[in-house]
């Protein structure tokens, strides 16, 4: 018997030597096999701003450098050229988003192309004189930068091209049919997610990240429940011209029909985002350029909506605040006058809110608009998406350094918990603000006036709001 044992153990040593020689096999395991099936550790479906940022961010994690990561984008690769012409789709990038871009080498590219710093933000309303303003000196860092969506996406894509040995991007490739294992009947499943592509190929992965936007195919395949709400509102966007100034202030005024905002794009241009009723939006779109410019100027300047009761009351309240906290009241600045608009830059979009009750399940995680789409009121939409990217990168990196299967639910749950803790309050606040400002009923007007004034005078409280708005 003892002899027998010895023999086995000689064999065991052989096993060992074979294991040690097996390494090259590893890479071969991950190559396309005969059936046109390709295997990847992570597949990101949807190469919009959020999905591309996800790929780029993962590509910069050294712990993941031996993992195979694929990004799918339905649209063909764009040949982008920066021209004088500004785009009507812009984002206000928060410091946290900028940090993410700095970490993965995208920020210098954006800066070298085009973006504008926001040093001050003024929010006021048409129904009373209350106002809230955020200045740079109240903030340790700059509030934000405004950049065109095209510029952001192009910058990320250029960076992705530089790290293409780590991230494979498949353009003109659509995930058409997705099968996700691990239903209730097979909780122990070690199986793969199977993705059928429009070119007939099949991709297999251990973790599928859904960044395929509002109508996410991934979300549907994962059977993740959503709550949707249609605001019955539309947003008008356009590029506005102003006479040249140090253009570093973002302006937002709440009108009874919804908020109108102008973001600085360059020293002579503003990006307009005007949220209003569908009828009003259609009317605005039908106007000539000159009439639309007049309408925008009017919307920022007029005081027809001033509610007498509320205004008297808030004036007194302001005095009271001045007594308690002298020197804390802000000076109102006046917005610049619009001189014209860039031809062909006017467009409109319907607005809604969609929120997935769960962002993850076994082997699947949703990011960006696929998980949450909201009213663009606070310019939060895409920043929340980039926040998802930062957190999911952190979680995947942690799973990898713990040697875990990357699609393990317990890690993905950490991502979900952390993000929902951030996203839900923002959604509730924005949804609440939207409803609050969508009325001219006196008690509500009064309440919000007082609310705005109090937050402006009470520095610490305002700092809290800034923190919230910019992370």
């Amino acid at each position, binding site marked *: 018997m003892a002899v027998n044992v010895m023999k086995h153990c000689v064999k065991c*040593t052989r096993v060992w030597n074979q294991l040690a020689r097996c390494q090259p096999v590893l890479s071969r395991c991950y190559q396309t096999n005969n059936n046109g099936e390709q295997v990847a550790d992570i597949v990101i479906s949807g190469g919009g701003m959020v999905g591309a940022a996800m790929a780029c961010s993962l590509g910069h994690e050294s712990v993941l450098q031996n993992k195979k990561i694929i990004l799918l984008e339905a649209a063909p690769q764009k040949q982008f050229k920066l021209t004088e012409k500004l785009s009507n789709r812009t984002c206000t990038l928060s410091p946290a988003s900028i940090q993410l871009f700095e970490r993965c080498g995208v920020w210098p590219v954006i800066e070298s192309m085009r973006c504008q710093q926001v040093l001050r933000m003024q929010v006021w309303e048409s129904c009373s004189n209350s106002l809230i303003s955020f200045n740079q000196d109240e903030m340790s860092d700059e509030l934000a930068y405004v950049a065109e969506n095209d510029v952001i996406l192009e910058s990320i894509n250029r960076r992705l091209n530089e790290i293409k040995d780590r991230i494979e991007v498949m353009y003109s490739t659509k995930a058409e049919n997705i099968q996700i294992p691990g239903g209730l009947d097979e909780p122990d499943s070690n199986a793969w997610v199977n993705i059928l592509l429009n070119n007939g190929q099949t991709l297999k992965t251990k973790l599928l990240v859904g960044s395929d936007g509002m109508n996410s195919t991934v979300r549907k395949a994962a059977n993740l429940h959503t709550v949707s709400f249609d605001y019955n509102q539309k947003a008008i966007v356009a590029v506005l011209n102003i006479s040249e100034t140090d253009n570093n202030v973002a302006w937002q005024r709440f009108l009874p029909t919804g908020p109108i905002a102008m973001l600085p794009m360059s020293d002579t241009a503003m990006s307009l985002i005007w949220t209003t009723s569908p009828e009003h939006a259609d009317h605005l779109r039908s106007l000539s350029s000159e009439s639309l410019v007049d309408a925008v100027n009017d919307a920022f300047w007029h005081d027809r909506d001033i509610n007498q009761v509320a205004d008297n009351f808030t004036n007194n309240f302001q005095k009271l605040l001045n007594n308690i906290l002298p020197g804390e009241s802000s000076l109102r600045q006046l917005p610049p006058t619009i001189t014209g608009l860039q031809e062909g830059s006017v467009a409109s979009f319907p607005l809604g809110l969609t929120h997935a009750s769960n962002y993850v399940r076994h082997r699947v995680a949703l990011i960006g608009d696929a998980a949450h789409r909201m009213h663009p009121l606070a310019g939060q939409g895409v920043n929340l998406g980039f926040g998802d990217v930062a957190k999911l990168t952190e979680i995947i990196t942690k799973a990898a350094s713990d040697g*875990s299967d990357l699609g393990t639910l*317990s890690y993905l749950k950490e991502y979900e918990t952390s993000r929902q803790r951030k996203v839900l309050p923002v959604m509730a606040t924005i949804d609440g603000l939207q409803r609050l400002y969508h009325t001219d009923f006196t008690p509500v007007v009064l309440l919000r006036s007082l609310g705005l004034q109090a937050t402006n005078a009470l520095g610490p409280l305002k700092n809290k709001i800034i923190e919230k708005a910019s992370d």
Partner: protein
Amino acid sequence: MLSRKTLKLIGCGNYCRSCILTSNNCKTLTSVKFGTSRSSSLHCPLALTFSKLRYQKAGMCSGFQIGRNCSSKSQNRPVVTTTMDEEELKHFQALAKSWWDETGDFEALHAMNKLRVPFIRDGLVDQNDIVESDGLPLKDLTIVDVGSGGGILSEPLARLGAFVIGLDPVEESTTIAQLHLKEDPRVQCRVKYINGSVEDLASTESEKFDAVVASEVVEHVADLVSFVESCCKLLKPGGSLFITTMNKTVLSKSLAVFAAEKVFKIVPEGTHDWEKFVPPEDLKVILENNNMDVKMIHGMLYLPVFREWKWVKDTSINYALHAVKIDPTDVADDRL
């Protein structure tokens, strides 16, 4: 002498309440051994070699089973994989579900990976002065996972670059562990499960490994002293031993119910002697007697509500330990 020791530990006797197999089970189930290597061969040419090896040596003893004491039968044991009866298949499936169901009976073991994998990783990185940045900090280190069960801990260690031998006396577990590798080319070529006891491996493979891991095993063994001795023997000088152990009441759901009662309906005799929690002080003494230097002992606490483990000071319920085999050449250097 060897066979006696074997008899005591894996000798188809009662070595472990949770993972017990009687001689009867042993007889009927040996035939499934590494039956899975054939399917693995689809992904990894190495597996082919494994199965070839197995068929060639079929007349003697199948696969990489070592030190089975049923030696009289092993001479003519069939190697085909179809001799299992229905009843056993059912057990097999029940076991398979349990090991890899993250939220099932072994939930606490899965959750523990978030603590113990970094503990082992950092211990080894520290001990071996490893500098890495490519996600494979344990690259090419050789590790034996003693009492590997379904491979919950073996797989992550392999993903970090190590070559892992998972050793477990319970055949169903090694089979299931092997099966689970099938869908994972990243680890498939770096892990091999062996059905056997640590004593037998130690008798031929002494001083061969960079690390030995025995996680949640020592509270199940019949003879702790010789178990630890064998673990230490496997280590190269300077090699690391990692042990984690817990008070079994915490895991009562996962273990006691699992194998002994639910599956095999066996309540072994004399369980009290070796069901006890091993206090860290006792373990430390045994290790020091084996020329080991205990580097670190950390308390651990399980929070079932959060399904989460936390590091704590208190080592009286669960703890993780890292010890290093004293390298005689180092000692000599120190004296100079």
